[in-house]
């Protein structure tokens, strides 16, 4: 049985109220959803929240979900768009805080050179890199997921990869 068929079986089971169905969907998709969020936001707690919120949205909308369509892209669209929004919001906030900032920020693991290079990219460039090279969507699919023209996806991919090559 293929992965796509597995997924449809899990969605159908979850729609019928099966806990094992939703658990199978969660176990199948959590790792990549969480990782995609982390690679965009570079903050483990925020990535956890974003992936969790995406799954809660899935639970809320399960009854309306069309079983004929794949679950993964729908989930990834939520994850990546929320991750971009979160990153932009953090940049706008500047994370300036008085004593609230006294507590040490999460150290993270930016020692990894690829992760550090990704962090230097704008969030929407990170997103297309993650969608293309982690989740393996085509540029056309990424354009649909992000709601941007395909040419924009291609240019972000090219610029993002050029920056990564220089940094890594």
């Amino acid at each position, binding site marked *: 049985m293929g992965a796509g068929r597995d997924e449809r079986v899990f969605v159908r089971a979850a729609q019928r*109220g099966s806990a094992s169905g939703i658990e199978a969907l969660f176990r199948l998709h959590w790792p990549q959803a*969480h990782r995609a969020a982390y690679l965009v936001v570079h903050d483990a707690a925020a990535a956890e929240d974003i992936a969790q919120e995406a799954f809660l949205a899935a639970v809320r909308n399960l009854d309306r979900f069309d079983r004929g369509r794949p679950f993964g892209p729908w989930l990834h669209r939520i994850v990546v768009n929320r991750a971009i929004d979160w990153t932009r919001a953090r940049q706008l906030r500047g994370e300036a805080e008085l004593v609230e900032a006294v507590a040490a920020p*999460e150290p993270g693991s930016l020692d990894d050179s690829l992760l550090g290079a990704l962090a230097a990219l704008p969030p929407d460039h990170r997103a297309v890199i993650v969608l293309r090279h982690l989740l393996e969507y085509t540029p056309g699919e990424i354009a649909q997921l992000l709601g941007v023209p395909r040419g924009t996806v291609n240019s972000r991919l090219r610029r993002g990869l050029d920056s990564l090559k220089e940094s890594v």
Partner: protein
Amino acid sequence: MKRELDRIEIPDEHDARERSWAIVSAAFAEREPQPRRRSWKPAVAIAVALVVVAGLLSPPGMAVLDELRQAVALESESAAVVTLPSRGRVLVAAEGGTWIVKPDGSRRRLGVYTSATWSPRGIFVAVSSPAGLTALDPQGNVRWSLPRKRVIWPRWAPSGFRIAYLADGRLRVVVGDGTGDRLLAANAGPNAPAWEPAINVHVLAYADRAGRIHVVDTDSGQQRWRSDPGDLNVQLEWSSDGTRLLALGAQNLRIFQGNGVLLRTIPTGGGPASVSFRRNGHSFAFARRVAGGRSEVVVLPAERTGGARSIFRGAGAFGEIAWSPDGKWVLVPWASADQWVFVRLGRPPRIVTESEITRYFSPAAPGGVFPTLSGWCCAG
């Protein structure tokens, strides 16, 4: 490239997955699955009939129907996931633990604590427990902890640099990073203190055991003013500009100017009551008991005069109310109906309800105590 991206280590990856699975599975367990592609009209008719019958038979349901007759727009009533109609995050202290709830219903359990409060921008939470005072990040990770006896009602100063709290019946102040803890007042009454909103000074209001309100600069120790004695159990609430202070007791609500001049005294009528200032201006919401075993929420100005506008009434008791950060909604915890009622001001008011709040926050303690609202903080 994919192999490299897959190899990047995510801190706390395993625990994050299991924490999230616990929340997702709980949300799934609480949802009502709906059959697909079947005749839906009979099911809807039955559901409506059941709701009506349940409403007619149960006292909380009767109360709900009673409120419906007041011609407001009731928008939803769902226990699967408690969502917020506005931005910000709500901090809830329940028997089953202290929770942070986001607008979309995602929530995080911080642990079991006796009281909790947001830091000014919602980046941290200060909590109390029998072991002492603790500062957490919103993920529940402990940033620092201060062992003290019988800690309760921590309150984080708007500057972020101070936290006031009661320990063993005494009012203490500690620096926001957990250092410099010291006694401020040994005669504090059993009430939460309240910081004046200014961020360049640390001015605290508290009530003593005679019901006097003290307003003190906690850094210099200088007392700015002190009121006459009044009610012993007092909720203190500053307006956002620091020019009004409400002192709500069992018998009276006193409205002070920021300099201590008493503007007005309003009888509460006895029974549980609470107040909450709107984010900007001098309007505040006031929940109080009224005749016939009912409660109401009114909005009125913190001035010498000015009428009260009723925005919601219901049977039984209301808990501590709170304005949304954008000042558009008032959250009324309705203990007697086990609901949160969100009232958006307007004519007529718009109302959204969330039901079965006790079970939602304390699933392992059915029939437990209605949760306490500890703050609705900070957009974003």
